[in-house]
């Protein structure tokens, strides 16, 4: 219940967040790998400024859903409308340039680089200096490097990872790596942030920290968040609306309370007697 308090605190601190219009609309999405149906006819939308959770048992197609949203997978059927524009052929870098950032279920940091460099890559989209300028490290390249370093340091301060900024990420413990990954995503100033199990494998304290960060990001930066999480306590506490998937199909959609009382959802999670 502590998290519930925190959520309410955050809402209070933000002076009551405004959930806005639909920014991402997924209509009748179907995705197949050969003969395997990963997603079947799934529709839901995400509104500006909300925290939208996707839940479901293992193998329900949650990660595939995120991969569809940011262009890693290409669904065979369905429409995706982001910021009012229907999406055509989409590659991940295009999604990034439209303001979609994400973290991964299995940490996907750049292991050979320091924390600082990892987060700096998150800002590369906003840096325009060319190769020759980089070779000389003079003029625009240097100016940009310093300008963006300032932004990155803000993110570092925000996520409280100042002390590890020069550490190679490979040496960090799991929980901190997750935080660095969030930092890298945040550095891109995303409109829409996709979090794939941000709290998996964490202990209670780390989970609480992560919850706080997610709520703060949502609140202070106005970032819309779609997250996948298995910890029901967390999901029910921090999300505004929840989508439930099972075997690649949508079986529930609504506020946490609605979803909790949905018989199909209960059946999927607890099993039913046939």
């Amino acid at each position, binding site marked *: 219940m502590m998290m519930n308090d925190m959520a309410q605190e955050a809402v209070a601190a933000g002076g009551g967040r405004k959930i806005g219009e639909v920014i991402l609309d997924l209509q009748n999405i179907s995705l197949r790998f050969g003969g395997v149906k990963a997603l079947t006819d799934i529709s839901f939308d995400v509104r500006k400024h909300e925290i939208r959770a996707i839940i479901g048992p293992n193998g329900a197609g949650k*990660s595939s859903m995120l991969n569809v949203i940011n262009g890693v997978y290409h669904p065979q059927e369905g429409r995706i409308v982001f910021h009012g524009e229907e999406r055509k052929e989409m590659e991940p870098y295009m999604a990034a340039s439209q303001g979609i950032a994400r973290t991964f279920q299995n940490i*996907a940091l750049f292991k050979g680089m320091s924390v600082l460099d990892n987060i700096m890559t998150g800002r590369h989209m906003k840096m325009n200096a060319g190769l020759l300028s980089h070779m000389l490290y003079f003029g625009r390249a240097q100016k940009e490097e310093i300008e963006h370093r300032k932004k990155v340091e803000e993110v570092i301060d925000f996520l409280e990872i100042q002390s590890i900024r020069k550490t190679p990420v490979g040496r960090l413990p799991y929980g901190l790596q997750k935080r660095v990954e969030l930092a890298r995503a945040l550095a891109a100033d995303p409109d829409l942030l996709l979090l794939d199990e941000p709290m998996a494998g964490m202990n209670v304290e780390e989970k609480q920290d992560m919850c706080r960060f997610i709520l703060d990001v949502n609140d202070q930066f106005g970032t819309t968040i779609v997250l996948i999480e298995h910890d029901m306590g967390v999901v029910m506490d921090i999300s505004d609306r929840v989508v439930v998937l099972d075997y690649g199909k949508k079986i529930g959609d609504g506020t946490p309370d609605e979803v909790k009382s949905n018989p199909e959802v209960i059946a999927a999670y607890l099993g039913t007697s046939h």
Partner: protein
Amino acid sequence: MTFFLEVLIGGLLSGVLYALVALGFVLIFKASGVFNFAQGAMVFFAALTFVGFTEVLPGWTGLEPGSGGVFWLAFALALASMIVLGIATEKVVLRPLVNQPPITLFMATIGLTFFVEGLAQAIWGANARGLSLGISDEPVMWILDDFDIIISKFDLIAAGIALVLFVVLALLFQYTRVGRALRAVADDHQAALSVGIPLKHIWAIVWGVAGFVALIAGLIWGSRNGVQFALTFTALKALPVLILGGFTSVPGAIIGGLIIGASEKLAEIYIGPFVGGGIESWFPYVLAMFFLLVRPEGLFGEKHIDRV
């Protein structure tokens, strides 16, 4: 038309030999995930060791030079050397590098290539030598008479030996306990280990078998082109074969070998004259490169889906 067939068949037969070298790669790659660049050097080492023994054995044992006794004794000694080399490689080079990224292992096998080449020549000397298996390189008469096509008896027998080897290995892997264990290891090291398959044993066996395959390939190649340093380059031709066939597929290695062998000979004859000849040196690689653009996983490789 006859000429075309001759070129084609000649190419296919030499393709069998490429496949033989490629088979050594595939065995090791399947079992231990190592792309063994040194396979070519091992072929060279095997051939040179065999020839070396046939030269010194008469002096040591008093056997008649060129007699069957010398041949089989040299064969046995060379095989023993190859198995020792294979097992030593596994123990000294690869075991300490377990869990390193595949690229590191690959580079280690490039180092191994140099080491094995140096070792072979340091022991047996660097001069080129002939190797005779007692099979004459003459046209098979009845084919010449009936179909008017020249096919070398040597090539045919060599292909036959290769074929027998493929079949024996296939049966071995399909129907024996060791074979089953090996396939399990190829699929998943951890899982194989957890059901009690002795991983180190299996690896030693695979390296030993790869040494045996290298010896056969070395003998055939060596008696065709002489035992010399260039043998290691011939073995490089097995790489495009692997790309075509996929790194993990034995049938792929065979079919890839046939395609490479046939296409490079045909290209040399029919395209070569327009560009000045000698295109055999690069044609297989360029072919493989274009092939990769169309089908990155090879003919028989598994399609890889990135999971994130």
